[in-house]
């Protein structure tokens, strides 16, 4: 009942033939069999296809071919990342049976590196939510406390990694959807710089905010995975041709002299004192290792949530227009005419939160409201970006909590959209500015629920936040703690 090894260990044992890729996949299949029942982290699992792929990798190794840096590593994808062999549902009834005829860029990269796609994870429908309660299919539970949410929207991915059912999973982060559930599940979650990883094959929510990132046990695994998926892809015009540094080599750099910024805006009203204590303890550790902690200010952060819910919903209202019952996806069975076909297919296919955001987004783009909402939000977004530009003139990294609180009980916020939106208050501005940020475990509260530390870096400096995260994890053991059902 020990569950799976992590990414680095799995690849090492498979590459050195201490264990076969088939065994690696089988141990994940076994862990899923034993632990998935109550957690409900996966929408689909494809053991046969994964084992077949594992055999191909084992055959390659037997023939002396290089099986790739991620040889035999089973991974899960959030169910908004397209791959050919499984339905990509976005946890929505409107795409319940949709099987894409193509692989996402990250799937191509991962497969080429020897990783094996084993499962697709649960999520808030179309990534809209912070608790995975908005899944159109079922709710996922937090492995640390099954009465609590795992966070969201990538809650299936973070819960699966926390329960050691899979060495790594991929999520998407539009306003915190990787980092917030990573914090609530006690795992490591990285949102790369906007443009660092191709969005080709990621079902769009907020196109100018979405990024795919790895969810792992530790920063080393995150570095290994980012190295594989990062880089320019000509199919995504917004992906950037910035060189990809050696993330793994950067992990061991000393952090002496590193300037870490803290902003009062991240430590205000609503922050659970236990979370604050754990984050400040992490800062003490960095200081003790020779880093310098400085006060900075991000004056426009108070507008981030409002700005985000205009920009993200505007883009979403347009991105989700294509699900209309005409070309693919759910179609209402007996429409009376074309308008009825549209209206009923969408009414039946989308959940309440998705409809709420489509309406909000449609409203802010409407003639007469565009300037007051959408255009103004774009201006605020520029100001938020400038805040970060200015901050990174004086510091190398910004440290903060990931979330104001630890995991909350299922149902607590599901009837209060505004309270739910505030769960992302510390994560949203990184998406608006496009900067990379990582969430790593930094302690537990009195209920033994994990607490997350967020490290935010300048554009394309994932190497730096991974370095700092790894140095923290080398000196602490928070990330090695396992939830009860996955105890070693």
């Amino acid at each position, binding site marked *: 009942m020990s569950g799976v090894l992590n990414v680095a260990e799995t690849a090492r044992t498979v590459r050195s033939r201490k264990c076969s890729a088939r065994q690696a996949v089988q141990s994940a299949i076994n862990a899923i069999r034993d632990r998935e029942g109550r957690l409900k982290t996966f929408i689909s699992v494809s053991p046969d296809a994964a084992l077949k792929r594992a055999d191909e990798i084992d055959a390659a190794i037997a023939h002396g071919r290089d099986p790739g840096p991620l040889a035999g590593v089973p991974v899960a994808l959030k169910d908004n990342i397209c791959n050919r062999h499984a339905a990509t549902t976005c946890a929505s009834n409107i795409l319940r049976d949709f099987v894409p005829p193509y692989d996402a860029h990250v799937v191509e990269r991962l497969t080429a590196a020897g990783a094996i796609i084993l499962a697709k994870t649960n999520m808030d429908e179309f990534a809209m939510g912070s608790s995975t309660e908005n899944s159109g299919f079922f709710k996922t539970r937090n492995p640390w406390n099954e009465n609590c949410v795992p966070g969201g929207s990538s809650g299936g991915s973070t819960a699966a990694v926390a329960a050691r059912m899979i060495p790594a999973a991929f999520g998407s982060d539009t306003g915190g959807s990787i980092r917030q559930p990573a914090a609530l599940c006690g795992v490591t979650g990285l949102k790369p710089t906007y443009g660092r990883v191709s969005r080709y094959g990621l079902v769009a929510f907020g196109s*100018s905010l979405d990024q795919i990132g790895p969810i792992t046990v530790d920063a080393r695994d995150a570095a290994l995975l980012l190295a594989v998926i990062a880089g320019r892809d000509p199919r995504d015009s*917004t992906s950037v041709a910035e060189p990809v540094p050696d993330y793994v080599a950067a992990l061991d750099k000393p952090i002496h002299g590193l300037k870490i910024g803290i902003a009062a805006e991240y430590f205000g009203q609503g922050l659970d004192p236990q979370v604050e204590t754990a984050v400040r303890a992490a800062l003490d550790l960095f200081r003790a290792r020779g880093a310098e902690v400085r006060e900075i200010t991000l004056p426009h952060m108070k507008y981030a949530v409002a700005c985000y819910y205009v920009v993200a919903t505007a883009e979403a209202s347009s991105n989700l227009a294509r699900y209309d019952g005409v*070309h693919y996806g759910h179609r209402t069975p007996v429409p009376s005419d074309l308008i009825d076909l549209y209206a009923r297919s969408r009414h039946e296919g989308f959940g309440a939160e998705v409809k709420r955001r489509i309406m909000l987004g449609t409203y802010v*783009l409407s003639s007469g409201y565009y300037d007051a909402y959408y255009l103004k939000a774009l201006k605020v977004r520029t100001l938020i970006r400038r805040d970060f530009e200015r901050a990174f003139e004086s510091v190398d990294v910004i440290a903060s909590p990931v979330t104001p609180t630890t995991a909350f009980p299922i149902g607590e916020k599901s009837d209060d959209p505004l309270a739910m939106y505030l769960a992302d208050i510390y994560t949203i501005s990184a998406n608006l500015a496009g900067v990379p940020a990582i969430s790593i475990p930094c302690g537990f509260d009195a209920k033994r629920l994990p607490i997350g530390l967020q490290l935010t870096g300048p554009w394309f400096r994932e190497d730096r936040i991974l370095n700092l995260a790894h140095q923290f994890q080398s000196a602490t053991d928070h990330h090695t703690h396992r939830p009860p059902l996955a105890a070693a």
Partner: protein
Amino acid sequence: MGHKASDIEARLIVGFETHVQLATNTKLFCGCAVAFGETPNSRMCPVCLGLPGALPVMNRRAFDFAVLTGLALGCKISVHTKWDRKSYYYPDLPKNYQISQYDLPLAHDGAFEIPSEGGSKRVGIIRAHLEEDAGKNLHDQGDYSLVDLNRAGTPLLEIVTRPEINSPDEAYVYCTELQRLVTYLGVSHGVMQKGQMRFEPNINVEITAGGQTFRTPISEVKNLNSFRSVRGAVEFEFRRQVQDWLADHDYQFKKRPNENRGWDDERGVTVFQREKEAAHDYRYFPDPDLVPVEVDTAWLNGVRESLPELPLARRMRFELQYGVTADDAATLVADRETADCFESAAERAGAPQTTAKQFLNVWSRFANDRGVSVGRLAVSAERMGELAAMVDQRVVSATAANQIAERMMSSSDEPRQLAESMGLVTVADEGQLDSWVAGVFAGNEKAVKDAIANPKKTQAAVGFLRGQVMKASGGKADPRLAGDKIEARLAAMRAG
């Protein structure tokens, strides 16, 4: 109080929105082939099908074509331009938004010069922007409809003029000249039958009556795809709008709604489709999947400098420089290759008028037979020029040149060699000419007698006799020398 038709003055006002399909190999945002008449839904991919997760990537060639056209229309080119989503639901629009350009079109504020009575006229261009075409809905299926997405994503350049066209003829000329321009530039095939140019005139009338001026509501006639229908629709609307105003003086702009109308080709009338919504809310916003396009000024200057002489200017120059008629100039400048070919040939020949005659009478006939332009014939401009020079220098006759030209289509021999091997080189040898002339005189005694007896018939007789000499020589006799000899011989007989 009414007005009689005879009391009023009516001025037609027309502006055009034209969609020009660009001649790229692939669609505007994906790698699918641009195709016409293929099996429905056989030219699609995740991108143009709007599948979740698929992303558009701009076709650089389409952008370059659009910039070239913009420059040729005298437009300013935006250094910074972007893509916007235009939202509306329709089954032929897979994403339920069209990628277009809203407030920053790539080209704006230009003017297009078209020929007009006694010179030319400049039609103001408001803007030109790129956008993707939609697919096609097929509604003739009983109780359901089908959608063909082969056309979805095809690059279109939309060109919008100022309302500065004032007659059906001008409307016709604007459209034909625009087609000449885009095909001449090579940015569009401009094939009307394939819907590669679609014209939408916005038409109203300014009426002056009893010292007051009224304007009728604007009607937009949708999707005209022939020049004839453009002229017909504009003519019809001009009449209809004046009549409607005469019948109801409140038929005025702002008092009555603007409307969309369609053209009924069989009946030759426009038909009401629908009133224009005051402002349909397309909820335009910048497409976050595409990056803005920054135009490099050095590159733009390069394109500007490489811009060729435009068709109208070139036609006017041909008239002056080569002394050809306006119609003949238009034929010679039908396309860029033919015009280039003509100029090279004329220069080689040193005889533009002879070259022009051969282009218009001989080469264009061969080109028509083969369905290509003269510039695409397998005969080089140098060889065409050589043949024209031979006629000009009377090495061969014009009749003989036609036969040589025909042979040149399949032979790579030099025209002079062909003339020799075909025995068509003009004979100027005195003895040979004398013998042909003597033979003709002997065989046509009655004509010779008439010419001598009746001075009024001399001219005709000389022509007849020269024709007989050409016939006897198999086209080889130098016609001018032969004529001289015939006249001299007649004069001698008259004297003797």
